[in-house]
Structures are given as structure tokens and as C-alpha cells.
């Protein structure tokens, strides 16, 4: 509760006001993007409802949102321009496309870390000024995490990955629509050095000329193609920009990963609480069911279910990503349930459970209020590790050509597309996505380690280790 004294103390030194002001500024810089995103999401939801064919009202709002200026947008810092013989046209301040793109990408990350710093500062302000208690057990957990370098490394990697997914459209040197989906509906200008003039070409045609297919024809990392387009990670075997592909691909990986881990954590936690509370036959039957699900290797189960459910309407949602998340959740909860069951059983033996029961509280209330808080820490640990594993499995499935439907970018597919060129000059197509997956998965595992050591410094770190390995993908 805020009382008069703390309010006065806070407003007196102006820190709160400064913090709020910075927050407002940070929001205004990106207000347009936030509004556009909200409207787009609303339109998608509206169109997903059967029987609704158009969302005219929402589309109007969306175009209004688009007109709000945004700092970190392609329009504010454009990198797609052309050389006209004397200087660059249409790029940011007339800089070379590579420099303009680098400025935008750097700004995105500066902004993201600014937000992170703002949140941390806000929490500290709250802790020092507004919170009544000088100390809570959670403080110790956070302090331990702060001094855990390995965990912090994981946190930074995960944060950068999330930033990549959130700002994917602004990070790429080009857009999915222009470069991939609708490449024959867009054209670009470029400087033709042979004729010495500015020419125009359809993007699809330009892509054919910028393909990376081995030693004879290659656009490697950090280079320009013949049409003056800059490719930070080079091009793919079909001439599309690899960096844009990967940025957008990170989005679907993250969304599927978070959705599936959230779902399986919910299933695992409620089943673990139920089996710990009732014990006996309920527990035994759950052990049997989870053993039966685990007896089918998860990757094989994923292959089987994606094949069987491939033609259904659920597979249409989000390029098959939603179905994938559901399958993941219903095949992966067992591993988390196994890890949660032990702690849940321990909690169920404590006196306060007996007390609550004799007090006449309902079982669901006891589980939610008196047992769940003690296993949420474990949920975080295994959630973080399972997320890394889910990202590997999703990539493995799309490497095999299953899961996320083809036009939608996915990291595993990039590995597959570049497979034939690994031994040639176009090695980057397969190598870079793999390095990114390794880095992100290491990050999630490190974060899991950090959280575990922060929550329970005595814990045996050799516990359940298979979570992060992605079902053998």
C-alpha cells in the first residue's frame, strides 16, 4: 500500500517522475509499432472466426496506426537505396546501405536493452522506496541470480533472441513480403555499372541473379549483390536474403516454443499437483499414462502426429505452428511432470496441507494456494530448458520437411536448403542458422541453470538433464 509518507518521499526526490518520464519516452518512440501490431493481431483473430470475411473497421484503424511515426522502423532509417553514380539515394542520410542497416540494427538493440534497464531501474525504485518490507525471500533469489555469471549470460542471449523475434521486421535488410512472398510484385532500382545508369528490376528477377549456389555463383556474408542490395548473412540458394529469413524464422520458433512450453507446464503442474494430493491409485494411473507416452520417442510421435493431423483445419492456423505447439504440449508434458512430481509429493507431506484440509478447504484451493507456489520455481527451471529443446525439435522437424509449412521461414529449413552447398563457397546457408540455434539453446539452458541455482543453491545440478536436448533432434 502507498501511504502519504512514502508518496511524499518519492515525489520529493523526483526519481519516480524521471522513471515515468523515461518510460513514456521509450513508449512514444515505438507507439506506432505497438498500435500497428495490436491492430494486426486483432484483424487476424477476427478473420480466424469462421464466417467473418473482412474486418473493414479494424483495417481502417490499422492504417491509421501505420501512419504514426516510429523511430525503429524501415521508414525512419531506410537502408534500401541505390547508387546513382555520385551518391546513395533513398538511404538514411545518404549512407551506404550496409551502414544504414547497421545503424538501424544497433538502435533496435540499444532500445531493447534500454527497456530492460528501465524495468530493472523500476523494480529497484519500487524495492527501495515503495515496498514496505525491507527484505523478502525473493530478494535473495534475485541477488543470487545477479551474481550468477553463467545465468546472466543465458539471460542476455535469451533477451537478444526475444528482441530479434519482436523486432524481426525492422531488423532485416529487406522484408519478407518484398523479398520472398511477393518478389514479382515489387521492383527495385540499382546502378548498372556497365551502362552507367540507374535501372529498375523486379525483385524476383534480381533474386535469380543473387543466388548462392556454390563456387561459381555466391553472395557471401556481409556483402553486396549485383543489384546493390546488402546481405549481412549472404543470400540463400534461391537468392533471397538469409538474414531476413532467419529474423522472421526466430518469431515462429519463439511463439511455438513459448506456447508449447506454457501448455505443457500447465498440464504437468496440474497433473503433478493432483497426483501428489490424492496419491495412491490416482498417482499410479498417472505414472502409467506418462510412462506409456514416454515409451513412444517424442520425435517419432511428433512425426506421426504431424502426418496424421496434417490435413486438418488446425494445421491452417499460423502455418501449422499452432498444431505443432499443441502436439508438443501433449507429448512433452510427461518429462516436466516427472520432474515436478517429486517436489509436489514433498510439499503434500507438510503440516499446512493437513491443516488446510482439516480446516475444510476444497482440494482445488489447497492445490492452488498451498502447493502450487512451492513448485513454480521448478516450473521456471524446466520451462527454460524445455524451450531450448523445443526450438531444436521444431528445427529438426522442418529440416525433415514436416511441421511449419514451407513458405513460412523456419531455421531448420534454411539448414536443409543449404545442405547441398556446405562444401562449396556457399557454406553460410547451413552454417549460420545452426550456430544461431546452438547459441539460443545454450542461452536457454544457461538461464535454466541460473534460475535453479538462484532458487535453490543446494540443489543437485545433475538432476533431470534430458530436457534441454530436444528429444534427440
Amino acid at each position: 500500500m502507498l501511504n502519504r509518507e512514502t508518496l511524499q518521499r518519492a515525489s520529493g526526490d523526483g526519481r519516480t517522475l524521471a522513471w515515468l518520464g523515461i518510460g513514456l519516452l521509450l513508449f512514444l518512440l515505438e507507439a506506432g509499432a505497438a498500435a500497428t501490431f495490436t491492430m494486426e493481431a486483432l484483424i487476424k483473430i477476427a478473420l480466424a472466426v469462421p464466417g467473418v470475411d473482412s474486418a473493414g473497421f479494424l483495417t481502417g484503424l490499422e492504417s491509421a496506426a501505420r501512419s504514426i511515426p516510429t523511430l525503429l522502423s524501415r521508414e525512419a532509417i531506410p537502408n534500401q537505396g541505390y547508387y546513382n553514380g555520385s551518391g546513395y539515394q533513398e538511404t538514411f542520410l545518404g549512407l551506404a546501405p550496409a551502414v544504414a542497416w547497421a545503424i538501424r540494427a544497433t538502435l533496435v538493440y540499444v532500445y531493447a536493452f534500454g527497456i530492460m534497464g528501465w524495468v530493472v531501474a523500476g523494480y529497484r525504485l519500487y524495492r527501495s522506496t515503495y515496498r514496505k518490507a525491507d527484505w523478502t525471500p525473493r530478494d535473495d533469489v534475485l541477488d543470487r541470480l545477479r551474481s550468477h555469471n553463467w545465468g546472466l549470460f543465458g539471460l542476455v542471449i535469451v533477451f537478444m533472441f526475444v528482441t530479434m523475434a519482436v523486432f524481426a521486421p525492422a531488423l532485416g535488410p529487406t522484408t519478407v513480403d518484398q523479398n520472398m512472398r511477393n518478389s514479382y510484385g515489387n521492383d527495385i532500382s540499382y546502378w548498372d555499372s556497365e551502362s552507367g545508369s540507374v535501372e529498375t528490376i523486379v525483385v524476383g528477377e534480381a533474386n535469380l541473379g543473387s543466388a548462392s549456389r556454390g563456387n561459381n555463383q555466391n553472395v557471401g556474408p556481409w556483402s553486396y549483390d549485383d543489384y546493390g542490395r546488402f546481405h549481412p548473412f549472404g543470400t540463400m540458394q534461391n537468392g533471397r536474403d538469409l538474414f531476413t529469413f532467419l529474423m522472421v524464422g526466430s518469431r515462429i520458433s519463439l511463439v511455438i516454443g513459448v506456447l508449447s512450453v506454457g501448455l505443457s507446464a500447465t498440464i504437468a503442474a496440474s497433473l503433478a499437483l493432483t497426483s501428489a494430493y490424492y496419491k495412491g491409485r490416482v498417482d499410479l494411473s498417472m505414472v502409467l499414462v506418462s510412462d506409456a507416452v514416454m515409451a513412444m520417442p517424442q520425435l517419432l510421435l511428433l512425426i506421426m502426429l504431424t502426418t496424421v493431423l496434417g490435413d486438418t483445419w488446425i494445421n491452417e492456423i499460423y502455418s501449422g505452428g499452432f498444431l505443432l505447439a499443441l502436439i508438443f504440449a501433449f507429448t512433452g508434458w510427461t518429462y516436466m511432470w516427472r520432474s515436478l512430481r517429486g517436489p509436489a509429493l514433498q510439499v503434500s507431506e507438510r503440516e499446512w496441507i493437513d491443516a488446510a484440509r482439516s480446516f475444510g478447504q476444497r482440494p482445488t484451493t489447497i492445490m492452488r494456494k498451498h502447493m502450487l507456489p512451492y513448485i513454480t520455481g521448478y516450473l521456471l527451471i524446466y520451462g527454460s530448458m524445455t524451450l531450448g529443446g523445443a526450438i531444436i525439435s521444431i528445427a529438426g522437424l522442418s529440416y525433415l520437411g514436416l511441421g511449419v509449412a514451407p513458405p513460412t521461414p523456419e531455421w531448420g529449413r534454411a539448414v536443409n536448403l543449404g545442405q547441398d552447398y556446405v562444401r562449396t563457397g556457399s557454406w553460410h546457408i547451413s552454417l549460420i542458422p545452426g550456430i544461431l540455434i546452438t547459441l539460443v539453446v545454450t542461452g536457454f539452458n544457461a538461464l535454466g541453470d541460473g534460475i535453479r541455482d538462484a532458487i535453490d543453491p543446494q540443489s543437485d545440478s545433475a538432476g533431470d538433464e534430458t530436457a534441454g536436448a530436444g528429444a534427440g533432434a
Partner: protein
Amino acid sequence: MSRAKYLGKRLLMAIPVVWLGATMTWFIIFMGPIDPAARLLSEGQVRNPAAYQAAQTQLGLNQPPLQHYFDWLSSLLVFDLGQTWLLYQGSNVNALIMDFLPRTLWLGFWSVLIAIFVGVPLGFYAGMRSNTVADYVASMGGIVWRAMPNFWLGIMLLALLGSSEAIFGFAWETVGPDLLTGISGNPDLTQLGTVDGFLRATKKVLPAAIVLGSASMGNEMRIGRTAVLEVKNQDYVELAKVKGVSKRSLVYKHILRNALVPLVPIITSEAFLLIGGSVLVETVFGINGIGYLFYQAAIQGDLPLVGTLMYVFILMIVGINLIQDVLYTLIDPRVGLEGD
């Protein structure tokens, strides 16, 4: 509870697990949104009612579902696995599995072995020298190694070995036994009796086994390291030291032997990863193993074969779990004595 009783209970528990797994598989395959009979037929045949009827009859789908379920289960129980429909059309599934399974077992055998013989010593080494540079390098390497996707690691390894002459100065094909048929592909298991044939077959699956074992290797290393760290600080190690036991004997007899105990269940439980991972690794390395067979059956729409293979996988995993229980009771006498 005696050990025999404990093991008997585990055996009894395995039966409902296999039954539940097989039932779920049956439900997904035959009660799912895809009609297995239609999936088996080509575009033209689907419109031909006679062909469709024939396929349905042969799959037994014209009977009531419950009847079909019991028929299917009982034929699996006696290992009457029927014949294939699309993949290697019309061949006997038992024969097909007998043909494909040895390659997977050979691959799995080496990947378990390599993981143990690289991961465990490295983990012990890191644990004995905890918090030194060597420890950090080994631990870091293990963590990153574990995070690499198998399929990508396989592609990169193949590329490295394929151009080994340019990179390392020697050609992988000609080091040791010659690989005349390329660096990846099916190992020739017919000549295992001879020294040369054995080496050749081993060298052929070695890269694939390293990749397949990568995740387990990282796990075993980590757990080995923690186990050594824990044992190192036990009182009996301290006592042995005070008694004047030689350093060599201290390390090998008192520390490493005891640190091995927690590793045994980990090694067997990694069978999940090995069997699941075999699909991708066999695809990348072009090995005609049972995982590859499963994947081909799934993408080509031979759903009855998918179900049958899933049953085989379930049996394998439950079997490995039982072996783990046996090993567990042998190594750790406390198991089964603490009640359930």
C-alpha cells in the same frame, strides 16, 4: 520388499504401459482424421470404389472399430506384423524390420559406447580439477556440444570429413580401412566376423555415432563431473587420505568407482534420445535403419507400417527401462528396500 519382488512389480507395470502405448498408437492411426485406406491408394485408385473396398478389407477397416482394435492388438502380440503397402510394396514387415534393425542397433551401440568413453572420462577429469581452466574449457565444450542440433552437426561433420584432405591434410576415406563406397551410407554388416570387415563397418558409422551420441556425451560429462565433486568431499575419501592411501589408489578406488553409481541409470535412460534421434541422423547420413524406415513410412503415407513400427519402438524402450531397473538393483542395494 525384496529385490525380486521389486523387479516383478516393475515387470508387471510394463504390461499396461505397452498396452496403453499401443492403444494410443492405434487410436491415432486408425481413428484419426486420415483414412489409412485412402492414404494407401494413388489419386486414380481413390475414385475407384472397388480398389478402395479392397484396401479397406485388407486393412480390416470394414469391421466394427472394436473388432479391428482387438485383431490389430492380437496380431502385434504374436508378432504377426503383416505386409507393407507403399514402402517396399508387399514385403513382409517382420523381414523388413529384421533387415533394417541391425543397422540401427550397430549405430546405437557405437553411439552409446563413444558417449561413455569420451563423456565420462572428460567429466571425471573436469571434476578432479574443478574450477581450473581445463575444467571450464571441458564444461563449456560439453554444454555447447549438447546444444548443437544433431542434424546440423551431422551435415557439418560430413562436410568436414568430405573435404578432410584440404583441411587436415589427410583424406578420411583412406585413413585406416578404406571406405570405397563413400564416407556415409549403410555399413556392411555381413563381414563383421573378419577384422577388416569389422573395422570397415565401424568406421562407416563412426561419424553418425558421434553425432547421435553428442547429447548423451554432454549429459554424461556433466553428471560425471558433479558426481566426482560430490564424492571428493565425502568423509570416507578424507579418511582414506588420512590413512595414507596412495594418490593413485585414492582416485581410482575411492573416488571414481563411487562416482560411477549415479551414471548407470543416466546411460540407459538416454535410450529415449538415441531412438528418437536415429530418425534425423539416419536421414542425414543415409543409413537405412529403422528410424529412417519410420520416417519414410510416415511421409509416404504407409500409416499401418507407422503404427507397427511405433509398437516396435515402444517395446524397445520399455525393454531398456526394464534392463535399467535390473542394473539399478544390482548396483545400488538400497533400491527396493525403501518401500515404493
